[in-house]
């Protein structure tokens, strides 16, 4: 005796299941091999299915109207009418992946991974075109940017470097009070002597270190200084209810508009002009610097400049500035006056070509009409990238700036 399971056969290339329409035999009937046993509906047509063997239909395991997956056992036929047979359907060796393997698609031979940079020659920084463009906009030096993954600097890497205060106005010598240089961010007291303390660099400190090193090393810079009689500025300040910083920003912006050379930046293929008089204003933080940008300063009046400067400083200290408020400066003003510094020389902040270091406005003795008088005086020191401008350019700019502040042609 033997029992033959009857399956719902796959009747077409794309058939996964079929609907049993009707049995043409009942349980107990005899059927011949090749005799039609049931009808099944596919998505194309109703097809007749013949019995694979001769025998007696012992079990019908599905009913008309049932949706049945292909190769499911739906009937049992045995060679005799009455031998006992198991209640559970005897499965055929239903093909699983091993027998009728759904072929694993051949993996298309992808070109070499795009994330790993090709073996570029070693003297080039590996950065994507998008990253290069953004770095130029932000004034970020690619040599100082680390690629987060894959070995190629991405636009995200550049933006991260830019936002972290990639512009560090030179605070050489003055950095001490900008952020208590001896106190590490981690707060380890300098007094500890047992083992040399090592404080991990914050991202900002790392960027400042890298940028200033680069500037110091690669940008040939010189400085010119003038002392300025701030009598007129003091009067303007009082009348408008603004600060010295605002008066300075306004004067610098208007002077810079007439001396576009100092607003350019150096590129081996040619000096690149500024797209606007956007003045960076260095803001000291607890352990670092940010340089928010006052855009189109030459088109704003003193009151507007004052409002905006104030907002930018507040925003910088609160850490709430968006990336585009921190980018695009063509000239920076760094003011250590409120910290009591008389005069200092700032380091040019690449890719800008010039930076103005401002000391404190102090009572000084100046000569006026042959007599010694006491007047508010401030020392301005302009540092300039010699690849962009020479001493004469710098001197001319400074002369016009001083002239504007003092209310007379220099």
């Amino acid at each position, binding site marked *: 005796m033997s029992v033959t399971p009857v399956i719902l056969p796959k009747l077409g290339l794309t058939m996964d299941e079929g609907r049993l329409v009707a049995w043409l035999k009942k349980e107990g009937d005899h059927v011949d091999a090749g005799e039609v046993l049931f009808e099944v509906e596919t998505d194309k047509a109703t097809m007749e299915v013949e019995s694979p063997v001769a025998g007696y239909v012992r079990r019908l395991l599905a009913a008309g109207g049932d949706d049945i997956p292909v190769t499911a056992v739906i009937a049992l036929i045995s060679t005799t009418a009455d031998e006992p047979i198991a209640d559970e359907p005897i499965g055929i060796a239903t093909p699983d992946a091993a027998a009728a393997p759904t072929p694993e698609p051949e993996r298309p031979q992808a070109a070499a991974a*795009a994330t790993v940079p*090709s073996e*570029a*020659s070693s003297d*080039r920084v590996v950065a*994507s075109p998008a990253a290069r463009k953004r770095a130029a906009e932000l004034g970020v030096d690619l040599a100082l940017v680390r690629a987060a993954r894959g070995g*190629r600097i991405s636009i995200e890497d550049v933006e991260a470097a830019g936002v972290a205060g990639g512009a560090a106005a030179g605070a050489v010598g003055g950095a001490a009070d900008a952020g208590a240089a001896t106190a590490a961010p981690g707060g380890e007291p300098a007094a500890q002597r047992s083992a040399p303390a090592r404080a991990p660099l914050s991202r900002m400190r790392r960027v400042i270190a890298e940028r200033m090193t680069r500037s110091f090393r690669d940008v040939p810079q010189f400085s010119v200084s003038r002392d300025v009689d701030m009598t007129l500025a003091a009067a303007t300040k009082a009348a408008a209810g603004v600060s010295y910083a605002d008066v300075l920003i306004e004067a610098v912006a208007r002077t810079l508009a007439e001396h576009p050379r100092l607003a350019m930046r150096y590129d081996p293929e040619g000096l690149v002009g500024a797209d606007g008089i956007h003045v960076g204003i260095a803001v000291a933080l607890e352990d670092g610097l940010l340089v928010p940008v006052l855009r189109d300063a030459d088109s704003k009046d003193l009151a507007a400049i004052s409002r905006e400067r104030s907002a930018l400083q507040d925003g910088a200290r609160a850490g709430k500035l968006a990336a585009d408020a921190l980018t695009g400066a063509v000239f920076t003003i760094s003011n250590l006056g409120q910290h009591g510094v008389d005069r200092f020389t700032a380091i040019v902040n690449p890719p800008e070509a010039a930076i103005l270091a401002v000391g404190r406005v102090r009572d000084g003795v100046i000569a006026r009409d042959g007599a010694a008088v006491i007047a508010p005086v401030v020392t301005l020191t302009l540092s300039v990238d010699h690849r962009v401008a020479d001493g004469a350019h710098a001197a001319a700019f400074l002369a016009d700036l001083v002239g504007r502040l003092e209310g007379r042609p220099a």
Partner: protein
Amino acid sequence: MPAPEAAEAGSAVATTELFYAEALREALRLEMQRDPRVLVMGEDIAEHGGAFQVTAGLLAEFGANRIRQTPISEIGIVGAGVGAALTGLRPVVELMYIDFSGLAIDQIVNQAAQNRFMFGGQARVPLVVRTQGGSGRGNAAQHSKSLEAWFTHVAGLKVVMPATPADAKGLLAAAIRDDDPVMFIEHKLLYRTKGPVPTGEHVVPLGKADVKRAGRDLTIVTWSREVLFALEAAETLAGDGIEAEVIDLRTLVPLDRDAILASVRRTRRLLVVHEAIRRGGYGGEIAAMVAEEAFDDLDAPPRRLAGVETPIPYAAHLERGVVPQVEDIVRVARELVG
């Protein structure tokens, strides 16, 4: 004295000045003398000597069985070539114009290119389909196309396009000796160009590009007739201090990626020039490959200078205007170098 097996034109071997058509004939003659299984089939190839005179004189030397002129039956000719190649011959069939390849394309694409693979390695198809394309003779739209991109897109085919007489001879010999189906695409305006051709056995390996001119400022990758234009353009550019490196691909499939990449890594600029229309042209494959593999070495985007996307027009000035000319190559190279 005898040329070494893979001699290149320019090495210290004896050469003769031959027309491109004569160089092809030389290759056919030598290969047919060397191997009795080689035969040529095509239209007008017997007494007439071929539409471009490539087979002139071969009928007298080899007889009508081996220089087998056919009726105008492209799919019959190519299909018979497939059958013969499967069963022990090494046929060289000719399609007079590549524009006619559509008439035989099933036998090329579904049969010849695939038999080896489909049969699990039981067979090989050492068939060469010689054809020619290109514009510049006023033959207009149905007799002037450059269709190599169709065939580069078929797995199982090799595609060869010689630019010089020496390469024509050497590559045809290699193609005949190759056990795979080769689309051997000549250019109608190259047949009457002349150049030094090594005498005797001369085989140029398939899959190897040739730096026809070294340079440091940009890499021009090109093939077929545009190679001649690129070399002329390079001379003009040299006057401006721009040194262009001209790479003649010679074989499109298999592609000599290493040669292209080595060059671009030095020059940092790529210009692909081809007569075929830009869209879907083989230049796109090369530009994409270079962008993928040498992205960080590029100082400029990879550029293509190619045929305008129009059927080839009839009037001479129109015909000239739709494919890259020397001055176009000069102009684009200058833009690229900046």
